[in-house]
């Protein structure tokens, strides 16, 4: 297996990309998705593997600069990275690439070179844009892609394709989906303009069942970063919500008066390859309108309860019902587990009459015990993989 280099994707793929397999990033037009193929290639160069990059839209020098924009210096990998230049001939300019495609409109000229360079296992053959090869060579190119994929398979090489999902015919789309081992959709969210981006699993033929969706942001430098725009922390008065937000966050602010929150707690989390913005609500009932307001568009919810205060459970339960009604991913955080007479998870489940499907995670928010475990579990639910 090789890593995809994309945050969280390897776990959706069952550990990574097995040798001999092909992965296609199916990219919605207008969404910055070609970085996915680049990131997969770069990650593997970093780990000492060999790679090939086939370019159709600019010369290798500009491709190098594009990588640099994300903070990735590929020049240091020398001959571990081979360029196949299918651009320079198109505009009639010189090329110093190792392999030059003399007739970029003829799919056979790609096949000849790909045949030549695929000989070793774990080589990552990256297509900067398969859609532009299709544009140049016509629909018949797909039959060749099918042959390349068989060849990669036989040689234990790995094919990574970027494909911009322009309005091609259904036939083309179906066929493409058929000949790839895995297809990852890269898309945009927003009614009238694109306001957010996500990626999600469409197909993984080496797994029985595969799923997962995640929003991302692109950092320069850094590349694709998983991103969760809104996680909500709610729960009864004094349960430890502000403390929980502080413990998870790399940066945070809360507006408290006399030890109780009168406006929002806000935190920004950077944990592994995930970034998230987290919002804590005030616990007192008079602030319920705020809860309603910010529960909109939340991606997931932590319900914090004070494990030492069963008298607050009915209030907690009614808050839970409110968010559950929205169908949001939710977990219950049983806080203050460090205190002697704290109720156990089983006792809490029993008292609150929570079904097994709702996960309860024990924490001590002050000492940051269990808080990141809780975060992991909620993320898995948000991704749809947990």
């Amino acid at each position, binding site marked *: 297996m090789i890593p995809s280099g994309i945050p969280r994707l390897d776990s959706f793929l069952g550990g990574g990309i097995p040798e001999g397999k092909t992965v296609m990033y199916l*990219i919605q*037009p*207008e*969404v*910055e998705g*070609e970085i996915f193929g680049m990131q997969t290639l770069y990650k593997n160069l970093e780990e000492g593997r060999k790679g090939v990059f086939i370019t*159709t*839209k*600019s010369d290798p020098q*500009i*491709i190098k*600069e*594009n990588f640099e*924009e994300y903070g990735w210096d590929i020049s240091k990998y020398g001959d571990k990275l081979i360029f196949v230049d299918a*651009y320079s001939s*198109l*505009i009639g300019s010189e090329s110093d690439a190792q392999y030059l495609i003399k007739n970029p409109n003829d799919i056979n000229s790609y096949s000849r070179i790909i045949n030549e360079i695929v000989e070793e296992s774990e080589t990552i053959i990256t297509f900067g*844009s398969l*859609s*532009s090869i299709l*544009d*140049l060579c016509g629909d018949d190119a797909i039959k060749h892609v099918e042959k390349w994929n068989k060849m990669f398979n036989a040689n234990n090489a790995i094919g990574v394709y970027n494909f*911009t999902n*322009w*309005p*091609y015919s259904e036939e083309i789309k179906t066929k493409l989906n058929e000949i790839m081992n895995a297809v990852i959709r890269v898309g*945009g969210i*927003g*009614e*009238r*303009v*694109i*306001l957010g981006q996500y990626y999600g699993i469409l197909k993984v033929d080496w797994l029985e069942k595969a799923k997962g969706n995640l929003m991302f942001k692109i950092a320069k430098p850094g590349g694709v970063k998983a991103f969760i725009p809104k996680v909500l922390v709610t729960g009864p008065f004094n349960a430890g919500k502000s403390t929980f937000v502080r413990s998870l966050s790399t940066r945070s602010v809360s507006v408290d008066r006399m030890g109780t929150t009168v406006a929002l707690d806000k935190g920004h989390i950077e944990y592994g390859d995930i970034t998230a913005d987290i919002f804590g609500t005030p616990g007192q009932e008079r602030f319920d309108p705020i809860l309603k307001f910010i529960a909109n568009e939340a991606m997931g919810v932590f319900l914090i309860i004070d494990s030492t205060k069963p008298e607050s459970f009915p209030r907690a339960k009614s808050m839970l019902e409110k968010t559950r009604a929205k169908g949001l991913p939710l977990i219950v955080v049983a806080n203050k587990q460090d205190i002697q007479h704290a109720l156990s998870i089983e006792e809490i489940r029993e008292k609150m009459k929570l079904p097994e499907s709702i996960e309860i995670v024990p924490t001590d928010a002050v000492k940051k015990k269990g808080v990141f475990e809780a975060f992991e579990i909620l993320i898995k639910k948000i991704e749809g993989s947990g």
Partner: protein
Amino acid sequence: MFHSKLDINIPKGSNILLSGPPLSGTSMMAKYICLDALERKEAVIYISTKESGEKIQKWVSERTDIKGLGIVDCISKSLRLKTNIEDSNSIKYVSSSVDLTGVSVKYSGLLERFWNIEEYKNIRVTIDSLSTLLMYSNVQTVFRFLHILTGRVKKIDGYGIFTLDEDPENPQVAPIKQLIDIIIKIEKNKIIFSGFGIKEEFEFEIKEGKLIVGGKK
């Protein structure tokens, strides 16, 4: 409003082809139309395959405020007009005019930015010119790209304005016309609108860096 000096009503969400024979001044007309929009606090996204982003920005800045102007520059990188080119807030660079995916990503980013600023009443997207795109990609490829862009223009209720340095009756560009609501032709000193049941003609001249338009003919 499409233009403050032209007495013509073009519905928002329209996609417009601005055509004329080579050297007839389609690019210049496209810029003057954008200028008029910027002066009226519209946002303009200018996709340029002919002139560098900096040059366009300078031309506009000599005439009006450039706050509402975003440029997608398709040539500076491939012609190496500068080294170490990096995107700025208002100028975004694409590897080459072949890279239509890149163009779509960059205009989309600018759209998101202008969309979130309430001050802009309208957004228009201009390509100058389709003829360059058609030089590097075949007509089906350009069609698929424009299909997405013209759809986006309708969704945001803006205007799409695309220059073409040849006769739109040319059979080679016929497929593209399906995506177009209105055709503007530049003929010598005349500007002719047709489409949506509109057929209007105006005289124009450029005098001391200003576009002067006559009444309807």
